[in-house]
């Protein structure tokens, strides 16, 4: 068995690993989706199976090598979140966001601080317990975008709960960074690591945030100018991904916050050229899923059951309970005080469990600044709780957005097209018989409002199509009018479909055949209807209008 294990897994290279993670993650995601559980949970479960706890295909060394993929995923998440931070939304809900943000972050901080202190005091000295409380407190206040946006995208949510949630998630990292700067400095002084002063500790996050704002704003403005010139989807995607990667690398060099920088770049871009944003963010969202899958598979793989000990297990339980309770109570209090809509008061508290990027980063900083028991404990507890909340968080968000009636409200044109079939857009226009004279055909055109008609044989099988252009050619030669029949002036059948053919496929085939119509036939190939490109456009416009009215 060990021999087999060596053959199979000892030669796992990065490409094989990435392929395995994406393939397995997608499989797990689909499986969980069928069980009505958000796909992200499936990705994480596949990660656990591939990780050190079980198959050991992905180990800690590999995870360290693959860390740039995590940064890329977080950068993409940050960038797309930037699209949600619209100036008009802030003008309208800014006060409400700030109130909820303050109370939910402080709620988690206070609850975790108090309960960790109490719990730790039974296992460690009071001094150590106080330090643990000071370090766990701010880490608990951050809420992750990863795991939140993924569920919102999957269920196509739109509404005040979604807007508030995205606003909070985007901003509470800043709060966590500041809080950590203050408390870690106190903890350091308390333990006698007086190498870094409180002022220096506060200046560091100030630099991180200020640097992120400056780099994010400049890159956002440059990207807006650049992308405004292009309409080609592929080129737009190339430039955008290049910009996100460049910004992430630059943030790493400058030691500023990666997610915040890319988020600000996205925000500036979305507000500067709002008309272009759906195309740009749409292109990124169509590219991002495999990167997100890798990110969540790696979250699962980080979980290592062998690192568990009784104090760590106790910390994990306390941290989870205190953070959850603090966030729920704080969010509810903040929403009520700011007079947020009832559904925000009621369901937002269930949506803030997610934890990853900033919390993990702060735990790594803690492990470096406080090496030994404190650092290791914080690292393991935060990694494990991240894994747990990423598992339980998404189903709660799904439940909340469903109850708040915000599911399937963020419908794009491409969603509508994907859901459409030929039968939805076809018109049962009369067909022209192949022996019909030009005079008769002109009559058919004048009686109906279509620009194209199917031509059928005596068995009602489509054999061609007559367009306005073909009629125009025939009419230009007056001496032929009485000599021509439909078969003489029709174009051969370009493309025929069945009523259940997807409109997405029809549009693709139309562009390949360079035509703007398709004939619809039944199982026996009898003509039953006609589709023009403009029928599709009309249907999409109607559907989009219906969706916007409902929202």
């Amino acid at each position: 068995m060990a021999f087999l294990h060596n053959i199979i897994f000892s030669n796992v290279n990065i490409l094989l690993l990435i392929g395995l993670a994406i393939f397995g993650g997608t499989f797990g995601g689909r499986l969980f989706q069928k069980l009505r559980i958000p796909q992200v949970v499936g990705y994480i479960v596949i990660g656990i199976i591939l990780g050190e706890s079980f198959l050991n295909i992905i180990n800690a060394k590999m995870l360290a090598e693959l860390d740039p993929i995590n940064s890329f995923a977080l950068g993409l998440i940050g960038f797309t979140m930037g699209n949600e931070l619209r100036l008009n939304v802030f003008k309208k809900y800014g006060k409400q966001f700030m109130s909820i943000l303050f109370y939910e972050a402080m709620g988690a901080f206070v609850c975790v601080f108090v309960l960790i202190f109490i719990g730790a005091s039974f296992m460690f000295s009071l001094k150590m317990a106080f330090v643990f409380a000071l370090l766990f407190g701010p880490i608990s206040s951050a809420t992750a975008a990863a795991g939140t946006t993924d569920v919102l995208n999957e269920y196509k949510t739109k509404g005040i709960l979604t807007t508030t949630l995205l606003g909070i998630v985007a901003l509470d990292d800043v709060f966590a960074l500041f809080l950590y700067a203050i408390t870690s400095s106190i903890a350091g002084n308390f333990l006698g690591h007086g190498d870094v002063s409180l002022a220096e500790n506060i200046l560091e996050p100030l630099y991180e945030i200020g640097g992120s704002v400056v780099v994010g704003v400049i890159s956002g403005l440059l990207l807006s100018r650049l992308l405004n010139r292009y309409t080609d989807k592929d080129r737009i995607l190339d430039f955008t991904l290049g910009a996100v990667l460049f910004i992430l690398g630059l943030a790493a060099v400058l030691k500023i916050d990666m997610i915040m920088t890319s988020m600000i770049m996205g925000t500036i871009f979305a507000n500067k050229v709002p008309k272009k944003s759906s195309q740009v963010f749409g292109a990124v969202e169509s590219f991002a899923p495999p990167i997100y899958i890798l990110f969540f598979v790696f979250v699962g793989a980080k979980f290592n059951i062998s690192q568990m000990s009784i104090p760590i297990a106790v910390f994990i339980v306390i941290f989870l309970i205190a953070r959850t309770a603090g966030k729920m109570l704080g969010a509810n209090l903040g929403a009520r005080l700011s007079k947020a809509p009832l559904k925000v008061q009621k369901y937002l508290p269930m949506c803030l469990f997610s934890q990853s990027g900033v919390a993990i980063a702060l735990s790594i900083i803690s492990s470096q600044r406080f090496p030994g028991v404190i650092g290791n404990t914080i690292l393991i507890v935060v990694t494990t709780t991240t894994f747990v909340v990423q598992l339980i968080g998404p189903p709660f968000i799904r439940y909340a957005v469903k109850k708040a009636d915000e599911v399937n409200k963020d419908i794009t044109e491409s969603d509508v097209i994907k859901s459409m079939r030929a039968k939805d857009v076809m018109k049962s226009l009369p067909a022209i018989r192949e022996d019909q004279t030009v005079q008769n055909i002109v009559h058919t055109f004048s009686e109906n409002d279509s620009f194209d008609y199917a031509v059928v044989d005596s068995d009602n099988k489509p054999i061609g199509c007559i367009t306005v252009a073909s009629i125009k050619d025939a009419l230009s030669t007056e001496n032929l009018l009485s000599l021509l029949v439909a078969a003489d002036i029709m174009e051969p059948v370009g493309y025929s479909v069945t009523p259940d053919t997807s409109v997405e496929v029809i549009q693709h085939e139309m562009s390949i055949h360079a035509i703007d119509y398709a004939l619809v036939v039944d199982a026996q190939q009898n003509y039953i209807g006609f589709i023009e490109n403009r029928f599709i456009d009309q249907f999409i416009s109607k559907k989009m209008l219906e969706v916007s009215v409902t929202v």
Partner: protein
Amino acid sequence: MFIENLEEKNIILVNAVDKDTVLKKLCRVIFETGKVSSEEILEERVLHREKLMSTGIGLGVGVPHVRCEGVKNVVLAMAVSDSPIAGYDSIDGTPVRIVVMIVVPEHNHRQHILILSDIVQLLKDSAKRTAILSAHSSEEIYKSLR
């Protein structure tokens, strides 16, 4: 356009024939030019078109015309009969003696209409028709069209 596309070797003289026979003879002439991949398909198309509406355009002229798959270029052929062609109906009831067949690639819709129009225009000229009918060889017919 008509004259440029008609070759002298594609002009035949026929006598005492019916409509189907003359159409099949013209299909053979066109197939032999090598510009049409299947004589069978061409024949089937030509005869089917005649069923939809006779191509006897009046003044003793018939212009069978089809767009057909497997045709590389426009091909024309002409048959002149010494007597009325049996079974060839025309819109003015005049017996048909001159038949010009037009075969065009399937997607050359515009070219099809233009050649047809050109032939109709040319053969409206009674002097031309008389010259064609009184000719004794393909060469004479070809010259009379010039």
